[in-house]
């Protein structure tokens, strides 16, 4: 394994991505059911396809001949890797979502429109777009009330059994493709996805001027939530982590306080440190971007009475928490899941430079079999590689 990896790394270092010409396939393309992997003479639509645990293959995924009503075909240009992509690769599942068949991975993406389906009015060929990866069914209660992130039948890229977007081409509803302003790169378009997670957390929490905010976890989500919290006008923001790697970046990105937790500190001690870091009373809002029992215990203890704890991170499912304490302090515990109606705002935030996501992109790769291997490996060993956002640049 180590030898193969080294060989792949060498190839990547030496070569550039070979261009693949795409020819529209005559075969159908059913979700979750890919044709048998063959080595065609001409690749129609190279994609990174997850077959099972540790089994990520670079193979052809033919596209349908005709586009569906109100869909567009997009040539992908930038796709980021998320922790969930890595998790599916390493574990084959997240909670009840299990990879049972080949699935194209990846969901943070942007590209250029190459073809319009019937009745598309909001886009034209050549438009550069950020792609919102979750398409809800509009008929259930959550969607009708504007919380379509909670749609039980939502089709979300790279959540089994739905294919993701780490491919040369995808088809997607035009209504979920957002044009990029001239001063935005495709990479920034792809970053609208994780930024949306941060924005949604800030909305759930009610981040606004006058509120002190603590963010637990300085990984990619914690850092992007920091950027969102600043955009939402938070008074003072403290970011905390057990590792110092990303805390200096948090500092650069505008955290007022970057708190390194001591190795054997208790949750009570960390809570006290957060309260001291955010005078006069401590954090009004705590956004837990790690999601462990210890971090949630810290959050409940640190939070000002009447405040809010928003859980974004997905570390552990079951936790022991000081609920009597939360209750007596009237602290609200709020879940935050993905996002809804955030893309337009995120693009505006980046376009106006209120948010600069570029420092979060630490590693870049082209799109080939070897580079996919190296990229995912890089992302999965973030503590060694220092990876925050690994980005594919394609076509």
């Amino acid at each position, binding site marked *: 394994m180590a030898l193969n990896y080294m060989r792949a790394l060498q190839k990547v270092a030496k070569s550039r991505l070979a261009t693949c010409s795409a020819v529209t396939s005559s075969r159908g393309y059913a979700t979750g059911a890919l044709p048998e992997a063959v080595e065609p003479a001409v690749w129609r639509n190279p994609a990174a396809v997850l077959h099972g645990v540790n089994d990520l293959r670079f193979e052809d995924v033919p596209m349908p001949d005709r586009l569906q009503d109100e869909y567009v075909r997009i040539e992908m240009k930038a796709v980021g890797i998320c922790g969930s992509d890595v998790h599916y690769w390493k574990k084959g599942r997240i909670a009840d979502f299990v990879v049972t068949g080949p699935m194209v991975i990846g969901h943070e993406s942007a590209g250029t429109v190459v073809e319009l389906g019937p009745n598309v009015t909001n886009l034209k060929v050549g438009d550069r777009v950020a792609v919102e990866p979750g398409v809800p069914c*509009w*008929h259930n209660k959550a969607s*009708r*009330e*504007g919380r*379509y992130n909670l749609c039980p039948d939502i089709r979300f890229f790279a959540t089994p059994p739905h294919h993701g977007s780490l491919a040369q081409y995808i088809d997607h*509803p035009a*209504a979920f493709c957002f044009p990029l302003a001239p001063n935005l790169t495709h990479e920034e378009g792809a970053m609208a996805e994780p930024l949306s997670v941060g924005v949604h957390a800030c909305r759930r929490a009610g981040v606004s001027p006058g509120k002190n905010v603590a963010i637990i976890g300085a990984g990619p989500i914690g850092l992007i939530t920091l950027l969102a919290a600043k955009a939402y006008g938070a008074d003072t923001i403290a970011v905390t982590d057990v590792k110092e790697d990303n805390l200096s970046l948090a500092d650069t990105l505008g955290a007022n306080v970057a708190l390194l937790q001591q190795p054997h500190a208790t949750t009570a001690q960390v809570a006290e440190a957060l309260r001291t870091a955010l005078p006069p009373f401590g954090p009004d809002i705590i956004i837990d971007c790690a999601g462990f029992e210890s971090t949630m215990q810290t959050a409940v203890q640190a939070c000002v009475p009447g405040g809010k704890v928003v859980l974004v991170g997905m570390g552990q499912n079951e936790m022991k928490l000081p609920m009597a304490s939360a209750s007596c302090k009237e602290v609200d515990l709020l879940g935050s899941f993905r996002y809804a*109606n955030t893309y337009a705002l995120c693009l505006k935030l980046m376009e106006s430079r209120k948010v600069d996501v570029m420092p979060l992109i630490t590693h870049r790769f082209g799109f080939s079999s070897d580079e996919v291997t190296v990229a995912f490996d890089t992302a999965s060993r973030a503590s060694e590689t220092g990876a925050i956002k690994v980005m594919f640049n394609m076509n």
Partner: protein
Amino acid sequence: MQRLGRAFRTASRYSTAAPAESTAWHNPAAVLHRANDLRFEHHDLPEEIPRGYVRVGIRALGICASDLHYLHQGRIGKAIVDRPMVIGHETAGQVVALGPEVTGLEVGNRVALEPQVPCWHNIYPRAGRYNLDPGMKYFATPPVHGALARFVDHPAYQSFKLPDNLSFEEGAMVEPLSNGMQACRRGEVKPGKSIAILGAGPMGLNALACARAHGASRIVITDIRDDNLPLAERLGAWKALHTPMMSPAEAAQQLTSLLPPYGPDTVIDCVGHESTTQTAIEAVAPGGIVVQVGMGKDRANFPVLDVVFKELDFRGCFRYTNTYPICLELVSEGKIDVSSMITHRFGFSAEEIAAGFRCAADRLTATGISSGCLWKLSLINSNKALKSRASTLL
């Protein structure tokens, strides 16, 4: 003019059998060609029922002031009847056929139809406020056809099953009731708040019923006529006040003295006359909410300083969102009695439709205000032989 009354109602009330077979989709309808030109004629149905749609045999339909307005003026604001349009939007019926990919409904299901079909790609529907969708398709708002027809095709997801103990009439009444529900949500009606409702016409009465359902108990309703005030009391008003010839200041004074110390927390204006808007703003307590439901003149004189000094929320209220399930439940549980608001009934024929609209119009003229009419229903009995030739009704 033939009033069919209770006997007819009882006979058809709880039928769950599918309507009798007739010639393939022969579809007589009340079609408005232009102002004062309403015709009873065939209206084409699509060859194939669209994907996700059901075909519904209409069994009950209520007339609304907006239907009358289109009939007499041929327009409401910028919505102009410039081509033939089926009228009517408050309706319930029975599913007679399913389009492709319909789940959750079967032929024979009794359903209330929510008369609006938003475009879910637009910003407002995505944010949960689909009533504000500029791309909305609403029954009998031109150019979209309404439902006073034998059959209507409608999305399955906007066709809500009637509980077993609800009649088709009650199902149709869920539409105006939904307006009352939306008004109460916009007005944040809840236990402990005092509420004033201006206007005891259909809109006011529905708002009243919904305010009770929202837990409010101190509800005062006012009207310049006293006809509907006894009904208002039966529907749960704490006080039903006759306020003829009162200036806004006088009316506001009455409301404040009835709801001390500072007046009503929420005022719902279901009239929309300049004087009632003024009354609402003058009467409402500081920090309170005025909900404007009634539609009057486009431009009105407005005590703006009151809005500033009292930090009022002056909130428009337009149609409704996500109200059908809760309204059906409230009626089914007996918490709201919509049947009491039904005053006249007509059948489905050229003559009876004409009579129904005339009756509604008479009531309108009598009140002299644009939103006062008693309820009328057209009952469509599919067993009746229906004339197919076009005939001008008015």
